[in-house]
């Protein structure tokens, strides 16, 4: 039987200025999962993470981390968590190695063990050569990786990543994805918040979408993507067109003489579209989704929730 890495029940947060950030959030994340927590800005993601990690006082509800209640058994709960926050929050005036060693010390790891672990994670993240460099002198990407090394040095069972790849170039982002997959494969449960929905779609098995302080979707990534019944495809054409072709059942726009945008419903499929284009002598060179599939769903769900509210 699988355990739950995280169980949140009826979580509420009202800030002193009267703003209600969370309105009774229920959320469960199973052990070993790679879980996406998505939502627009101000939806309540960071508040939820803040409460789980003891940085924000909750107004109501319960949070358990691997069964340890954050109120009744805070030390056990905190010991299970590693956090990579959205913003840099390490001492810029300490050398890289010291940042990681101090973190290990805060979790009660002795000096020798801490050094061995720090070396392992700094090497894995390509920072060992920078161990004596002051943290403020690292590049933006290196600072992000330093926060990941710091979060892993006490080998947490639950790793929470709040926008870990914000502002990171695509090459580094992809190497971080592969590293995180490796960490997850070793058994660490990962919760990820991100604005790069492609990132969530590629990495995560389960997902929750939070909007206006409420969970509006909580399901598997596969089940969620199956809900997508319409996609917008962009087709690049070999020969230029003056007007868009007319094909029954497919709304088509001509974006420029070489590019068509077509809306395709799930039940329609693409064969009929290509057949119709071929019969009109239109040759397609390449095709892509206009938006990431998860992005389309996400935008639709948040818009729908906004209309209901």
């Amino acid at each position, binding site marked *: 039987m699988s355990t739950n890495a995280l169980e949140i029940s009826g979580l509420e947060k009202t800030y002193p200025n009267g703003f209600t950030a969370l309105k009774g959030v229920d959320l469960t994340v199973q052990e070993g999962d790679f879980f996406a927590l998505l939502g627009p800005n101000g939806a309540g993601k960071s508040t939820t993470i803040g409460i789980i*990690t*003891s940085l924000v006082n909750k107004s109501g509800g319960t949070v358990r981390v691997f069964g340890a209640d954050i109120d009744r058994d805070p030390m056990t709960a905190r010991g299970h*968590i590693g956090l990579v926050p959205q913003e*840099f929050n390490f001492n810029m005036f300490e050398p890289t190695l*010291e940042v990681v060693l101090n*973190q290990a010390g805060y*979790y009660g790891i*002795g000096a020798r063990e801490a050094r061995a672990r720090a070396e392992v994670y700094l090497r894995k993240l390509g920072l060992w050569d920078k161990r004596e460099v002051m943290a403020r002198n690292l590049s933006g990407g290196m600072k992000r990786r330093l926060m990941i090394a710091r979060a892993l040095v006490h080998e947490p069972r639950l790793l929470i990543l709040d926008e870990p790849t914000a502002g990171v170039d695509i090459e580094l982002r992809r190497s971080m994805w592969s590293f995180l997959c490796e960490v997850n494969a070793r058994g660490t449960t990962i919760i990820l918040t991100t604005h790069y929905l492609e990132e969530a779609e590629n990495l995560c098995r389960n997902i929750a979408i939070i909007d206006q302080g409420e969970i509006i979707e909580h399901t598997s990534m596969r089940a969620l993507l199956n809900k997508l019944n319409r996609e917008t495809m962009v087709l690049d054409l070999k020969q230029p067109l003056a007007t868009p072709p007319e094909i029954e059942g497919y709304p088509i726009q001509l974006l420029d003489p070489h590019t068509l945008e077509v809306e395709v419903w799930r039940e329609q499929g693409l064969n009929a579209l290509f057949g119709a284009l071929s019969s009109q002598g239109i040759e397609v060179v390449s095709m892509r989704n206009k938006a990431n599939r998860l992005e389309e769903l996400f935008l639709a769900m948040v818009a729908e929730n906004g209309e209901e509210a």
Partner: protein
Amino acid sequence: MTQLQRNLVAFRTILVKEIRRFMRIWIQTILPPVITTALYFIIFGHLIGSRIGPVDGTAYMDYIVPGVILMAIINNSYANVVSSFYGSKFQRFVEELLIAPISNSVILLGYVGGGVARGMTVGLVVAVVASFFTDMAVHNWLVMLGVSVLTAVLFSLAGFINAVYAKSFDDISIIPTFVLTPLTYLGGIFYSISMLPDFWQTVSLANPILYMVNAFRFGMLGVSDIDVTTAVAIIGLFIAVLFTFCMYLLKKGIGLKS
């Protein structure tokens, strides 16, 4: 590993981090008090003091040495905690401590330990500087060391409270400038309260720093305007009150959590 062992490792980590911090910036932390106090000894002690004559039967230079040393301890223990803890809030790395499985008392004791370490280090350096101007004597080692450590603890706690409430770098200099410095100078460092009119003698008794300076002076010279037991009891009482208040602030997350 037990929670106690984890806490001990965490305490040592915070303490070592704090000591490394003030040693790394020794030009800002250790050197200035040495220069300032050397000037006190030259100007007040040597040049002006030679014309003042003895106070309470002690040469003026000898009389001001304990107060100047204790003033350095007070200022530096306070400054260390207020600047370091506020800096950790400003750069947000205090979050490293708040999310870790560390009890609040360990966080507080770690920072206070750092404040005491800097206060005592600077106090020792100032004592060495003083030894170039006068023959240093110690009347009672236990009282001298005990009062200096307790005073450093007290002002480290006060610095912690200041840092918790501070919202800008201005806020960490207001208390030292407008409260700490006047109280220190009026705490009998450069004079005996017996030199004041009766009314101002009574007013001076409301200044907690007076008790510390006199108890420390007793430890070094064997002379004091105040009963030493009363002075130590008052310092202990202040420590208990401030420690309890600091623990309350940490428990509620005031100034630290939203």
